[in-house]
């Protein structure tokens, strides 16, 4: 049985395709994304508080390395598909980074199916935001000497790093994690009714919004052609093996391997578009957003995640 939140996503896509006037106010979009980031962080933090800190260190390093490597793997493939340097770097960066809502959907699916996963997984998400973006910018600079010179005011590494690390996504995820870890189960009890109980309903609402946005992107897919569809389906499938492999290597649980596969397969549509727009202006923003939000996201949420869970079960015998 399909998770109810997926229906909201499909409703959003449907509304857009039939030309409905339904729009969620921008302030609601922002509110929902702030909520989800904080709530995911908090939940992870509460669990983290019951764990030896040192045991997560190898995971943090492994995840960071994976994020950095993904764009390096994808870049030559994209170049060989005749994308220019800037676009190849930018698309790679989107895949190297991560989609928080995809993470929320996979954990919801795991909970529904009763498959355990490492409860501090939000930490992986926070760690995954930045390295892929850095690798993407590096590739763009190497691939196109011009890029740096035009971007006279911008493009300082320090600025990029600052913007990602102290950007909304990482700050709220890590902020939530730390608050959850420090306050613990008892300390966060009084805010449970806002941050824990309605979580899945809020996720449903956010998926309705993302359906509207993704639906609006489908027209673009036609413009960019079949290549973009192929990338948006095959890259996630391929990357899920990279993620699952890392999960096995780190000795994660079945659910943990599924999460890691999903994180690798997911493409960022919040941090990456903003960062690439500033750091790699020559890249076509419409192209990478169409891939990340118009194809990868729907594919993962509706088709990919069940597969990644199956994959994890097969690999771990779970």
């Amino acid at each position: 049985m399909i998770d109810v939140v997926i229906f909201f996503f499909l409703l959003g896509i449907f509304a857009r395709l039939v030309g409905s006037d339904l729009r969620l106010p921008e302030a609601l979009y922002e509110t929902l994304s702030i909520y989800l980031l904080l709530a995911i962080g908090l939940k992870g933090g509460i669990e983290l508080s019951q764990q030896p800190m040192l045991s997560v260190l190898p995971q943090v390093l492994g995840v960071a390395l994976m994020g950095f490597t993904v764009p390096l793997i994808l870049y030559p493939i994209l170049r060989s598909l005749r994308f220019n340097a800037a676009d190849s770097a930018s698309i790679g960066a989107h895949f190297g980074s991560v989609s928080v809502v995809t993470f929320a959907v996979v954990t919801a699916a795991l909970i529904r199916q009763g498959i355990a996963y490492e409860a501090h997984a939000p930490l992986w998400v926070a760690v995954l935001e930045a390295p892929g973006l850095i690798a993407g910018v590096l590739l763009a600079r190497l691939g196109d000497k011009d890029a740096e010179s035009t971007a006279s005011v911008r493009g300082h590494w320090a600025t990029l790093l600052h913007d990602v690390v102290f950007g909304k996504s990482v700050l709220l995820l890590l902020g939530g994690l730390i608050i959850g870890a420090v306050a613990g189960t008892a300390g966060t009890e009084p805010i449970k009714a806002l941050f824990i109980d309605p979580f899945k309903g809020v996720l449903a609402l956010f998926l309705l919004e993302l359906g509207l946005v993704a639906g609006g992107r489908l027209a673009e897919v036609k413009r960019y052609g079949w290549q973009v569809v192929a990338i948006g389906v095959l890259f996630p499938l391929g990357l899920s093996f990279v993620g699952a492999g890392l999960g096995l290597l780190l000795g994660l649980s079945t659910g943990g391997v599924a999460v890691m596969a999903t994180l690798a397969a997911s493409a960022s549509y919040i941090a990456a578009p903003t960062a690439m727009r500033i750091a790699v202006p020559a890249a076509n923003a419409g192209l990478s957003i169409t891939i990340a939000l118009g194809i990868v996201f729907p594919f993962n949420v509706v088709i990919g995640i069940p597969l990644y869970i199956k994959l994890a079960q097969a690999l771990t015998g779970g």
Partner: protein
Amino acid sequence: MEKHKRTLLVVIAEANIERMLVQDIRRLGAAGYTVTDVRGGGHSGVREGTWEADRTIRMEVVCEGGVADKIAEHMLAEYGKHYGLTLYFSEVSVLRPNKF
């Protein structure tokens, strides 16, 4: 009540580069600026502004003609190629010349 000629420069651009535009404006000598969240359409398609990558801003700057030219030239050179950008000038008059 004496009036003084100034130039109004209006810049419409993606919200992503707002911070950089403000820095540029300040650096090039304008005393102030006003920003509005807008939506719209142009050569690069429709921008509805319902989520972060799709937001557009409209910035207006009242300043001396020379400063407006410098700002516009800089913006066109710096952002014109890769960003959706609309620029226009208009003659306005103000009452307190040393404010602008």
